[in-house]
């Protein structure tokens, strides 16, 4: 079972291997910089637990758990 972005603990970093989202979400993620090979870091969770803020290419993007689970990292 590969590690996904949603399992990344706060403060940890990883590199993107695959994005298994489809359609609109896939485009959106790739447009925002979530491209295979990119370094991603987990910054913090929302006070409600979801979404989570990730640092990618110098920008902070918040993703919901289901969507973050589509991004596999190593």
């Amino acid at each position: 079972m590969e590690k996904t972005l949603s399992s990344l603990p706060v403060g940890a970093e990883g590199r993107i291997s695959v994005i298994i989202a489809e359609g609109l979400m896939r485009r959106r993620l790739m447009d925002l910089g979530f491209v295979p090979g990119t370094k991603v870091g987990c910054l913090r969770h929302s006070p409600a637990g979801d979404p989570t803020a990730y640092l990618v290419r110098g920008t902070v993007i918040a993703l919901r758990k289901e969507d973050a689970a589509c991004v596999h990292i190593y």
Partner: protein
Amino acid sequence: MNQINSSFDKRQQCNTPAANVSDRVVETIYQQAERIAARAVSGTGSPKTDWTRILDNILTSKFLGYPIMLALLGLIFWLTIEGANVPSGLIADFLFGIEEHLSAAFMTIGAPGWLHGILVLGMYKTLAWVVSVMLPPMAIFFPLFTLLEDLGYLPRIAFNFDNAFKKAKACGKQALTMCMGFGCNAAGVIACRIIDSPRERLIATLTNNFVPCNGRFPTLIAVATIFMGGAVASTYETAAAAAVVTGLVLLGITVTLITSWALSSTMLQGEPSSMTLELPPYRKPQVGAILYRSIIDRTIFVLMRAVTVAVPAGAITWLLANIFIGNLSILSHCANFLAPIGHAIGLDGFILMAFILGLPANEIVVPILIMAYMSSGYMLEFESLGELRDLFIANGWTWLTAVNTMLFSLLHWPCATTLISIKKETGSSKWTWIAFLLPTIIAFIVCFLVAQTTYFFGWV
């Protein structure tokens, strides 16, 4: 290149029928862009303190996040109420002073009574009420809100609230459109364009009405100050009123979430779409420039609206109050007709009528109500909002009337401008009608329940 190839292989292993060609195109574009950026862009080294991260750790933290949001909201209302007090009084003194001179002038030139009535007692007076009671809070709240927006805080509100919206099967960006609704519901409706899914966009549009817009705040503030503030020691007056208004806003947000959930489960079924939210770095807002520009802009905007909407409404109100059928004015006839419905929901006929006449612009509701009450002959020297209290009590107001007026103002139908915006944005008459009926029905039900429970237990 090796990494990309290996990830490409992994994708093949996953059997994902992705558009592999477009993926590789995107990846190579990014590589190219990175190469160029690495050569061309030079950084200033890491900044001394990452303020954004420090602030975010506090503002979106588990324990402090929500309380801080609440406190900020309350603070904004407190500043609005406190700051509007003195200007309100000054403007009122000035404008009503002029009214006396106007009346004297009319008498000197021997103008007919009805002309004096329409122009001075109707149009000018309503204008004076709107400008003195409604304008100052609006001119203060909007700039404060703009300041918060410019700071970059709004995405953090969406970040904190997204989970609640996800549970309501709505889009997280609805938190942002909801915030825009605080400024103006029509602007909030247009802001719903940022939501891609048509289903979720419609939900956001229909529920935008439940946050009070800039025009409804003065109504809430006025009633809260008059009744709630008057019930506590004068040092805590503003704080009490601010607390009440904050509570109402929270109620509005709760109703938004519940209605969104209900719509998602019935008329607008579907699964929540994905959401990406950018949290940009905080900006130091140009406080002076924003305050100056915003106050001036808002004042001009409200004044123009007052002239185009309040003045005619004032004329109509005066006419209705002074044209008699039988031995009652048309106004009294209407109020009597609406009285049973009004009483059932804890209001009275006049209040209901003021809300109906306030369809073009929410800020004229209280002025029309004042005018309607005064047409029965009550003389009013406007020193402060406290005078209004006597006027209302003389017309049968109780704490229940105050509470239900505020509830009705919060929940009732959207103003004409918003309805027009909804029609333009949705392109559908059906949804515009629903946008009108849904809040109205909810307002009636809520007020009915509150009123009947109070009557039943004999609390009033």
